[in-house]
């Protein structure tokens, strides 16, 4: 079975500071990896995904993530955050050999302060 761990339930950061949201996963088979963002009262929106190839993936809104197979991690980073980045961020995986069923982490609330 697959599982996803997001160790930080909340990350406060000042505007224009860099941020890293951590994600570790566990799986006995190969997986695809995703980051989703949820703004208040909205659905989940895909930020970026890792399917194969380059381990550094760039997404929308200036976010990027790096897949590290040896550490089974897929941390999300942004060099300079904005107030509008305040939201809940979810890391997710899906098996490569099954239907596209997402398994989510518990989420990290990013709180950007002025």
């Amino acid at each position: 079975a697959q599982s996803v761990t997001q160790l930080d339930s909340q990350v406060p950061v000042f505007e224009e500071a860099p941020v890293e949201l951590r994600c570790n996963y566990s799986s006995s088979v190969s997986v695809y990896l995703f980051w989703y963002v949820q703004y208040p009262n909205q659905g989940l929106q895909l930020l970026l995904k890792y399917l194969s190839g380059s381990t550094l993936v760039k997404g929308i809104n200036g976010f990027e993530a790096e897949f590290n197979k040896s550490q089974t991690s897929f941390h999300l980073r942004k060099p300079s955050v904005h107030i509008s980045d305040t939201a809940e961020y979810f890391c997710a995986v899906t098996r490569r050999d099954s239907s596209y069923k997402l398994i989510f982490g518990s989420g990290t609330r990013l709180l950007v302060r002025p």
Partner: protein
Amino acid sequence: EPEVTQTPSHQVTQMGQEVILRCVPISNHLYFYWYRQILGQKVEFLVSFYNNEISEKSEIFDDQFSVERPDGSNFTLKIRSTKLEDSAMYFCASSEAGLAGNLDEQYFGPGTRLTVT
């Protein structure tokens, strides 16, 4: 930009009652999903649906749950006899393709908050 819509945004029901949560997926999408998030917990997969049948379901999706695509646009989740523990946010999602060999992004709706009293 096309989007997935869900109605109602909030549903309050009494224990034992039947509820139907409605979703309108993006029009050219073929794969449909339901997820739920109990307050303070993870988003959990419930069921996936393709070609008018369930392609995969989780342990949560027991006989009290059913899904249907009654017409060309709606995708519904029915809970036959609600329990207190069914209180959660329910998310619908759709994708153009769904199998691992032809992966595509899932687009999520804003969710329906179900409160069972």
